């Protein structure tokens, strides 16, 4: 509930069913709490193999940090904790997809050492 609410507040779109599905077994869902036990942020990911022809890799599906606690390393800690889980499961790559106009999140992943991957995402307008 708190996760769906934080995401809705930051993205302006409520999607409770999507977040419910994210909690499925086999997925990793880590949360960070502030000192008073409130939700400070979360990260969600999963290992996926052979999607789009790519060998197994840990995918980061979502990361959100409460704006009030940003720039304190919460995001980096969540990312590192998720990466540690991926490594423990034997994968050697972590991957994500980012809106190229979202400089904030792009900069965050770059600061974690991520670089352009082997795939290029393509779209076509069908309207």
């Amino acid at each position, binding site marked *: 509930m708190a996760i769906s609410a934080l995401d809705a507040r930051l993205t302006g779109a409520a999607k409770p069913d999507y977040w419910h599905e994210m909690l499925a077994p086999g997925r990793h869902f880590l949360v960070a709490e502030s000192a008073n036990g409130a939700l400070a942020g979360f990260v969600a990911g999963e290992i996926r193999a052979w999607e789009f022809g790519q060998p197994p890799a840990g995918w980061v599906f979502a990361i959100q940090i409460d704006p009030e606690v940003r720039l304190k390393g919460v995001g980096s800690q969540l990312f590192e904790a998720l990466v540690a889980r991926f490594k423990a499961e034997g994968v050697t790559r972590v991957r994500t997809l980012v809106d*190229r*106009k979202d*400089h904030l999140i*792009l*900069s965050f*992943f*770059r*600061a974690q*050492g991520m670089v*352009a991957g082997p795939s290029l995402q393509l779209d076509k307008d069908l309207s």
Partner: protein
Amino acid sequence: MKLQTATRLGLYAVLELARDPERTLSSADLAERYGVSSHHLAKVLRTLSAAGLVRGGRGASGGYRFTGNRRRTTLMDIVALFEPAPGSRGKEPGEETEIGGALQRVLTEVDEIAEATLRSISLATLLKKH
């Protein structure tokens, strides 16, 4: 991707100085380190100084130091000081034709990806050793 000489020198100077904000280096020091023209670098440093990224440089031996914010300044901020803004470019001959327009959409796509990449990398990120 080809950068103008001034852009490359600007990136070298800012990144070298940002490595240690306490340290001062003259344009001659920087020129020697990167094997580039000291005269050209002096001009580039004046542009960087006007943008508030570096300070100093009184006289020929005057040293510069970094005065920007390593985590907030991105590679694009430096590139934008020396390269023409993507939107400010005049129309090229032939761009109005069907093929010219289609070609221009491909080139714009390349520019957008390049800009997103440069804007996503802060000085701190580039200087970090992973």
